[in-house]
């Protein structure tokens, strides 16, 4: 060989695009740093154990008395309740789409289209839907059937807000579950059926355990999306102020996201109450993060178990 494999010219185009992608990453990191930094700097003075653990008792704009415990409780409760509603419905829908329905059938195509459209609906529309469908239709009719003169079900409450959020996050759960179902080798289903298992036994004992991490991913994405949403709960359950914590599914609740909105728009002195606002935002971020971490840890545990033994 006569060549010396010596580099004779710089590969400028590669150089340029490497730099460009690095810049893009730095830009995103910078944005994140600015947002989080701004919140922490402005909210730190207000952030304390007392702020986390007390309710405002009507004094929500008083720096000394403001507290967000009822909002933390409300947001956590509505997110967890939503998970309980959305996961079974989403998983069963995904099972139908991948395991039971024929891929070519019109029903499947209609359901897929519906799921995709549901994902594109603005969240305020879900709020109005929740008000019209869950509260005014289902709730008020329940009251009628149960013979109540005073509205119990037919008013905004924790359960209807959670269900509205569940409808909103349904597409995410369906799509991620479907993906994880499709990644299961068809050979496993065949092996089960060839051993004389019914379709249901195959789904319950072979397919679902394998899909569990994917289902939990769907749950994590749903939690992330729902925790910060305000619009869907605006008419369906979030309260400006209530005394104490909600005690039943039919009670209204206070919510971190909605509380931020209140602090921003209803404060008699925005400059003075700004630390409360920032601290509340900080708490919302931390709570969302925490809920995600818990879900991710559960998923890691399930994966570990599947890998070690199955």
């Amino acid at each position, binding site marked *: 060989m006569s060549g010396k494999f010596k580099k004779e010219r710089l590969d400028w185009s590669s150089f340029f695009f490497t730099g460009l992608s690095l810049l893009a990453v730095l830009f995103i990191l910078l944005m994140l740093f600015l947002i989080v930094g701004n919140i922490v700097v402005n909210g730190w003075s207000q952030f304390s154990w007392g702020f986390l653990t007390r309710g405002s008792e009507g004094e929500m704009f008083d720096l000394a008395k403001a507290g967000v415990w009822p909002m933390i409780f409300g947001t956590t409760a509505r997110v967890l309740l939503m998970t309980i509603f959305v996961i079974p419905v989403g998983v069963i829908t995904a099972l139908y789409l991948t395991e039971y329905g*024929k891929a*070519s059938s019109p029903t499947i195509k209609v359901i897929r289209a519906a799921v995709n459209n549901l994902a594109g609906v603005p969240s305020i529309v879900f709020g109005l839907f929740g008000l019209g469908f869950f509260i005014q239709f289902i709730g008020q009719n329940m009251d009628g059937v149960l013979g109540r003169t005073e509205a119990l079900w037919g008013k905004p409450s924790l359960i209807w807000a959670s269900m509205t959020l569940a409808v909103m996050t349904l597409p995410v759960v369906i799509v991620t579950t479907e993906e994880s179902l499709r990644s299961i080798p068809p050979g496993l289903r065949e*092996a*089960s*059926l*060839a*051993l*004389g298992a019914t379709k249901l036994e195959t789904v319950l004992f072979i397919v679902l355990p*394998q899909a569990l991490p994917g289902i939990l991913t769907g749950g994590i994405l749903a939690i992330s999306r729902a925790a910060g949403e305000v619009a869907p709960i605006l008419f369906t359950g979030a309260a400006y102020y209530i005394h104490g914590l909600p005690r039943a599914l039919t009670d209204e609740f206070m919510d971190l996201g909605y509380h931020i909105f209140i602090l921003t728009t209803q404060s008699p002195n925005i400059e003075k109450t700004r630390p409360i606002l920032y601290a509340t935002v900080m708490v919302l971020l931390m709570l969302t993060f925490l809920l995600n971490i818990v879900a991710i840890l559960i998923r890691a545990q399930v994966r570990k178990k599947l890998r070690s*033994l199955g």
Partner: protein
Amino acid sequence: MMSPMTIMPPQKLDSPPAGAAVMDAPPLIVVDKLSLYYGTSQALKNISISIREKMVTAFIGPSGCGKSTFLRCLNRMNDLIDNVRIEGSVQIAHHDIYSPDVDVIELRKKVGMVFQRSNPFPKSIYDNITYGLRLHGVKRKSDLDTIVERSLQQAALWDEVKDRLQTSALGLSGGQQQRLCIARAIAIQPEVILMDEPASALDPIATAKIEELILDLKKDFTIVIVTHNMQQAARISDFTAFFFIGSLIEYDRTRKIFTNPTQKQTEDYVTGRFG
């Protein structure tokens, strides 16, 4: 070539049978004029064949000739595919398995299957074997233990895995996984085992073990095996059926098929002139 070929009745064979017992082996699976369509295209054409009990019957033929499709007709695995239509009849032990009153679950308990790609469940070795048993109502731990040991012994895997029954089946080598799949199939005591190219993804040593195992298993089971490997068919089978473009071209004793086939196409295929 498209017309159904005459199948020579085993009684009129040129080559003498290997033993009287072979001659006496009664047909267990009798297929009569079976045709299979995917939508409008015909994949199997008018196939008639009698498969004998406790014998190894090999299906050979070039890719796409319908041998795997035909194998899957014998435990109704084709039911799972959309738009499949089947004509003709398949009788196993004098029962028409396509009759409307047949319980497919019961059929598949009697006609087990081993697939081309080993497909152990992502469970422990023990749970792989007991999966079918538990489904069919075997619950007692001592019964399960006995059957696990017996099945693994029969599949020549016991000595290699007896100390690690509770570890994941996915930790086994490819050949071990395939033998585990065989053990899993025989655990529920089928009468017939269908094997769809069970050794095609394995190395020669693992393949030899599977072949040895098949010869051993035919004492207890009727085995139907699809294979691409003609030497394999010649080594392990008693009868061989040659398929070509959806038709059964020739079916006879393996020795006859490989030494003195009646049909020109069979001769061309087994001598390696096409396929």
